[in-house]
């Protein structure tokens, strides 16, 4: 009896001594965290990437008894299958009995101009057969998004018509499409850049308010320039609509599409796997590099990527000096004591202030006060149009820098505290002043810690949206904060941001169902961007660590 108890005791002792329960507990904590991260990434990737995959177009033939109940009309639904899901409210058949199969299909049918809706829903039960129409075209248009249909002919500018049965049809269409793309770029260049330049000069002239003969001459010269450019643009526009593509929708409606409206087209059911992969990559790259269209629901998100990148970089440039200088004072020069402790606690708590409060502060202080003063001092001639006195990428970066500066202060302080006293004393004993010691010994040795702070700050700053809405982010920015116009970096400009883009697409766009894949794709890119920036910082830090790490002791 006593033996057994002893044995039991021993077992308990070793069990507790090994700390097994706690190992399990910590492992569980990590596992929960990891699962959540992986699940989040999984959802975003699995929803975001398929956007770029050219999926097959299917034709769902409906059973005769429910024909014509489809809003698109006709007895079939043609489009890409989005998802199958269970009906929440059970569907009943004509006799009022619950149907056996409660699955519902969501199909992307496009042709919004004809159908009014991008999606069609059908019960699995109601589908008689599914086929793949071989010859169907998927046509991407400038407006109204995607169209599915069968081309009938192209009408050329000279009135000639090339029917789709003609052997040269595909080459003619490809050539027209390429030409229209080129013209579109040209129009964009004229309207955005050249006319923009002239407008800018006109504006300058108007503001200078000189009425001598010289400026009048200049004015008329600019006017003439403007007119030639404008007429050139309208000429190009006319050419864009001179030829057109005639096609018929799967439900039998005849449509005509001006060539200028045609962005690209594919025959999704005729693609080989390799072509699909190439198309996937091209779609993805276009998404990265193109400007958005149609209230951001179509096209790419390049301005948002660039805006986020520029803002985060500017923020890093601002936050590091701020934080490091503050940390140096706190750690090296300030008298340690109660008051300093209070300051430290206050700084740390700054990180807990809701970000929107920083937005309000940034709007009041940076934008209205500082920006307003700058406008009055340097840009008085443009007033009442504000230059810096309105939200812009610079103020947004400063606001976020203010928000993330506690992180940098804390990590810099920790890093500086970790610099061994021995090497500080070594430096001082060499006749270095305190500042020289900080600058030459302490700061380089704390660089990895400072970078850790920066990494945390970037991760927080890049994902922040709320304060940005007050200090400079917009749904659609006319130009990037960096371009070829002097002085190249335009810090006062408004910018687009991936985080805000997600919010805008998901919650502000007219057709949120159609925008959903874009939301996921944008989220994916935001995550990729943050990871890229972080990786860059982490790699630098590792390099520095190797340089400054003590090895032999």
């Amino acid at each position: 009896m006593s033996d057994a108890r002893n044995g039991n005791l021993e077992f308990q002792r070793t069990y507790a001594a090994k700390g097994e329960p706690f190992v399990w507990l910590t492992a569980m904590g990590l596992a929960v965290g990891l699962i959540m991260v992986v699940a989040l990434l999984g959802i975003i990737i699995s929803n975001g990437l398929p956007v770029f995959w050219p999926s097959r177009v299917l034709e769902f033939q409906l059973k005769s008894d429910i024909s014509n109940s489809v809003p698109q009309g006709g007895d079939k639904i043609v489009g890409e299958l989005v998802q199958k899901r269970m009906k929440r409210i059970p569907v009943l058949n004509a006799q009022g009995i619950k149907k056996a199969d409660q699955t519902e299909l969501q199909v992307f049918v496009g042709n919004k101009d004809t159908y009014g809706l991008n999606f069609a829903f059908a019960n699995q039960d109601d589908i008689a057969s599914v086929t793949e129409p071989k010859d169907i075209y998927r046509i991407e248009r400038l407006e109204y998004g995607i169209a599915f249909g069968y081309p009938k002919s192209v009408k050329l500018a000279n009135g000639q018509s090339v029917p789709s049965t003609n052997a040269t049809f595909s080459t003619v269409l490809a050539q027209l499409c390429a030409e229209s793309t080129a013209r579109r770029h040209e129009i964009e260049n004229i309207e955005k850049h050249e006319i923009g330049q002239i407008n800018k000069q006109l504006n300058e002239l108007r503001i200078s308010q000189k009425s001598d003969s010289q400026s009048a001459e200049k004015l008329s010269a600019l006017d003439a320039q403007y007119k030639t450019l404008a007429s050139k643009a309208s000429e190009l526009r006319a050419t864009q609509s001179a030829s057109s593509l005639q096609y018929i929708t799967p439900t039998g409606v005849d449509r005509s599409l001006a060539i200028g409206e045609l962005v690209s087209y594919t025959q999704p059911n005729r693609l080989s796997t390799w072509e699909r992969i190439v198309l996937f990559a091209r779609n993805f790259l276009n998404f990265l590099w193109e400007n958005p269209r149609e209230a951001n629901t179509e096209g790419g998100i390049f301005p948002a990527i660039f805006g986020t990148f520029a803002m985060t970089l500017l923020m890093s440039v601002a936050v590091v000096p701020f934080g490091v200088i503050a940390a140096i004072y706190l750690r090296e020069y300030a008298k340690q004591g109660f008051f300093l402790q209070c300051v430290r606690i206050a700084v740390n708590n700054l990180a807990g202030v809701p970000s929107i409060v920083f937005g309000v502060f940034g709007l009041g202080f940076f934008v209205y006060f500082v920006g307003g003063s700058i406008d009055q001092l340097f840009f008085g001639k443009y007033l009442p149009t504000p230059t810096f006195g309105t939200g812009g990428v610079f103020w947004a970066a400063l606001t976020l820098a203010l928000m993330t500066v506690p992180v940098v202060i804390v990590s810099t302080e920790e890093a500086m505290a970790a610099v061994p006293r021995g090497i500080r004393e070594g430096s001082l004993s060499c006749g270095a002043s305190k500042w020289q010691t900080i600058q030459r010994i302490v700061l380089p040795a704390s660089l990895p810690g400072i970078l850790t702070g920066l990494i945390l700050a970037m991760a927080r700053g890049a994902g922040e949206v709320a304060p940005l809405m007050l200090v400079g982010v917009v749904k659609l920015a006319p130009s990037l904060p960096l371009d070829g116009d002097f002085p190249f970096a335009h810090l006062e400009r408004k910018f687009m941001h991936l985080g805000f883009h997600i919010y805008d697409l998901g919650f502000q766009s007219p057709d949120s169902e159609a925008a959903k894949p874009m939301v996921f794709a944008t989220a994916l890119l935001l995550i990729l961007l943050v990871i890229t920036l972080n990786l860059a910082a982490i790699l630098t830090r590792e390099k520095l660590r190797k340089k400054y790490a003590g090895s032999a002791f």
Partner: protein
Amino acid sequence: MPAVLSEPVRSHFPTTVNTSTAGRPDFISIQNFSFFYGAKQALFDISLDIPERQVTAFIGPSGCGKSTLLRNLNRMNELIDGISHSGDIIIHDHSIYDPLIEVISLRKRVGMVFQKSNPFPKSIYENVVYPLRVAGQNAKNVLDETVERSLKGAALWDEAKDRLHESALSLSGGQMQRLCIARAIANRPEILLMDEPCSALDPIATVKVEELIQELKSEFTIVIVTHNMQQATRCSDKTAFFYLGKLIEFDVTSKIFSNPAQKQTEDYITGRFG
């Protein structure tokens, strides 16, 4: 006396002008010096004259205040909060506590090698030239010349000459200590303070450092703290024995080790306590 003394305001610790080969017997003069860490008194009324261009050893049991006194000679203890002192330390007729003197200029004249080697996380080259760089010297030929002279002086040249631009942290413990010696002598201070420079070294490196001390003696006034009686006998000219913050005995080394005047000294060097 040097002319600088007559100037009413000066901020730099005056440079010694070497006129005689014999050297002054009271080059560093510690006068009734007491030292406190907060309320705790670490040194009690110490008076001691350290001769110029000779080696003076501080010995005594652990915690008796050797390092504290040594670190006062270049005012290194001032980094610690709440310290205070009484008495004075005079180096070559000038008080190191003279409020007109910048502590930086004092430290430029008084080099220091620490108990634990403390190379900077920089290259070997940059470690050695650090005292010159902070003094504003950036001329490459001067720096190159200094590196060679100092590393040779610290008996590290042969081992390090091919890897001058590698990190100093890749050196062995003993090499690091010699690098610290090279760094301490790079800007030619007048006084070299060494706090147990051999505590982390193997016998061969120890011999090297001891030989080094003998060589450096012709140029520098050296004060060395050591726990090793043989080392004190081998390389010092005078020895001071401390016990519990008090100076017990100070005399020529051979006298201390052969015929100490105090009983406590004899007990310590014969290993009966401490």
